[in-house]
């Protein structure tokens, strides 16, 4: 058998395939980040937490309502997307408002809600916190109903969005950790996709490929390509891109820009939740699963070029491959190799491989 640097070539093909599978998770997650950054100019640090939430929603659907994997694949992104839209409307959008009354309503109602639930009704801290957040968001939504938001003309620094979403991510993770612990919850592979195939090239067995992993590659490729098509090739996508360039002008044409931005954010985080459901049967469903991944995914986005849709897809898959190879030749470095590449790319092309220098 042919060996490459002491590794049998057949084994190497197997490892490349595995790299591609991990790459599909990087691709979907970084795609969501790229969409949100490209169209909203927000560095969305809640992405990892919402990916985790997607996996948890799938688990909850199964264990509390008896709804299986396939429905979860549709329902979890919808549910998390809805949560994402609430986050955008009530936390992120007010960052650029000229007056902050909506935020005061949100904070006030949340605080009162927490006092009521925790001390009044003696509900546990996790549930009380989640309930208070829901009350706050509901109150702010009622307040904001039919009141057109006043968007500030002053451009808000990325840093505020970054810090805000980072804080939200810590809170969401903490809530799940308090409720479910860190060991994770079991979620099994759907029966249609259990088992696997022995892959052979010229009759030489390469690896045992679980059916589920094959499905992950297919599903993520389809979703990535569909997203790219919608944003780059359709009229809706054209509106979106125009709205980022010049929101005022697009608004003047009668397009509801704030609504479009909210929906885009919802779509971006729905992608994260979709990846979360895909990951649930193979990684353990645990509150830290997003935090471990998000840093790598950010590196992927930076390497691909902030906001570049196609860039994030291609880099996602490519870095999965690179990481896969590292796991064979020098496994100790497999968690650092992506950052080494990031440094190198930033030195040579500061805007990223596919980014446009502004």
């Amino acid at each position, binding site marked *: 058998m042919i060996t490459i640097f002491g590794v049998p070539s057949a084994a190497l093909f197997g490892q490349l395939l*595995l790299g591609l599978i991990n790459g599909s998770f990087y691709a979907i997650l970084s795609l969501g980040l790229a969409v949100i950054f490209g169209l909203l100019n927000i560095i969305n640090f809640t992405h990892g937490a919402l990916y985790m939430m997607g996996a948890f929603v799938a688990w909850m659907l199964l264990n509390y309502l008896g709804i299986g994997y396939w429905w979860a694949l549709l329902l979890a992104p919808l549910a998390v997307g809805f949560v994402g839209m609430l986050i955008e409307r009530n936390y992120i959008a007010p960052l650029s408002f000229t007056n902050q009354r909506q935020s005061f309503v949100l904070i006030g109602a949340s605080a009162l809600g927490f006092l009521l639930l925790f001390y009044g009704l003696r509900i546990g801290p996790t549930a009380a916190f989640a309930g208070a957040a829901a009350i706050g968001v509901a109150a702010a939504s009622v307040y904001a109903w039919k009141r057109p938001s006043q968007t500030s003309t002053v451009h808000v620094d990325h840093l505020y969005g970054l810090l805000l979403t980072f804080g939200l991510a810590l809170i969401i993770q903490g809530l799940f950790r308090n409720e479910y612990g860190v060991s994770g919850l079991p979620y099994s592979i759907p029966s249609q996709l259990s088992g696997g195939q022995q892959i052979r090239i010229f009759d030489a067995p390469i690896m045992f490929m679980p059916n589920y992993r094959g499905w992950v590659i297919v599903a993520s490729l389809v979703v990535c390509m569909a997203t790219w098509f919608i944003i780059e090739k359709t009229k809706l996508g054209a509106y979106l891109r125009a709205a980022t360039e010049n929101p005022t002008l697009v608004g003047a044409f009668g397009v509801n820009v704030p609504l479009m931005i909210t929906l885009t954010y919802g779509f971006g985080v729905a992608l994260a939740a979709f990846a979360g459901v895909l990951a649930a049967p193979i990684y353990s469903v645990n509150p830290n699963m997003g935090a471990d991944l998000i840093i790598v995914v950010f590196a992927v986005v930076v390497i691909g070029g902030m906001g570049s849709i196609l860039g994030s897809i291609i880099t996602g898959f490519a870095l999965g491959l690179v990481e896969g190879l590292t796991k064979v030749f020098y496994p100790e470095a497999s968690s650092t190799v992506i950052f080494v590449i990031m440094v190198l790319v930033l030195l040579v092309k500061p805007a990223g491989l596919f980014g446009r220098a502004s």
Partner: protein
Amino acid sequence: MKRFGTLAAALAVSVSAAAWASAAQAQVSVKLGVLNDMSGLYADISGPGSVVAAQMAVEDFKAAEKGIKAEIVSADHQNKPDNGSAIARKWYDQDGVDVILDVTTSSVALAVSEVTREKNKIFMPSGGGTSDLTGEKCTPNNVHWTYDTWALANGTGTAMTKKGGDSWFFLTADYAFGAALERDTTNAVNKAGGKVLGAVKHPLSASDFSSFLLQAQGSKAKVIALANAGSDTINSIKQASEFGITQGGQNLAGLLIFSSDVKALGLKAAQGLVLTEAFYWDQNDATREFSKRFAAKFGGRMPTSAQAGVYSSIIHYLKAVEATKSKDTAAVMAKMKETPIDDPLFGRGSVRADGRAIHPMYLFEVKRPEESKGEWDLYKTVATIPTEEAFRPLAEGNCPLVKKS
């Protein structure tokens, strides 16, 4: 440090309140610091549960009635040795902590051990597992409770090799604990007549193990040993079954598995695993009684062996404080080494010169789903490893405190 769990903080407050009430007759006041991973991958193994166990130990010992004012503080070391030793320094220097307990993550435990020696306080690790703590890096200030890598290797490694698993491949977490576990297991396997074919080191808290598992599969070893812990082990086992490794005739050996891990895996994925532990909640009336009280305080979760170890080690420490009527490090350490352990949870044993607390260890097998009678009915006992054989012989540890005869 800022990430004190609310639970931990509440407990600390309630303990100090209880202690205040009896401050009038208190003669000795001690401060016990539970330092572990409160939020990361090992938080279910020890984490906030260890604080609950510590609290129960102080209550059950009736410390206040015996003239000891015991206060418990806790912190999250986030699995970083620098963080852990910084907290330990602050606790010893500024906060007047006398004993640090638990300390999951061997690299942090080794760092805290050095700080403890420097400050001449007492360190009683339970969640941290490297056998170096009572071997080459032993100090006069350590009492290592619950388990260590040698005991795990000796239990699981010897048992599996003798059952016919004579060739091994390791999946090793790339830090002090993984390295110690791999080394100790390699020795145990060689001694039992098996051989080690290879090893791959993976980063701590990796989520995808398929690549490493495939390398293990390619080695054709009969036993694939998981020299990792917590969610790393859980993910490895889950993905090994996905890639058809166990179905292909290779066996998995989880070298460090806690009951919380088995709970998270589910019996369907974990059934048949052989593992070594010092404590399981459902062993006898005493462990059941303790565990049910623990579960009532901790959201229905049964204690892991690391958490039970925190409980027992505090009891042993408080006994020594009561007997010597002081908290002088040398006097208390001498008393702890002199007093035999007779513990409801860990059985009979003693603390050796090198700081190793010895007690029986148990070889368990994870039940099949149809054998399990309840949510927490996880293990059946395969064998009991007697106290004398469960831990590394005193002479083999190369601990400088042990005089060569």
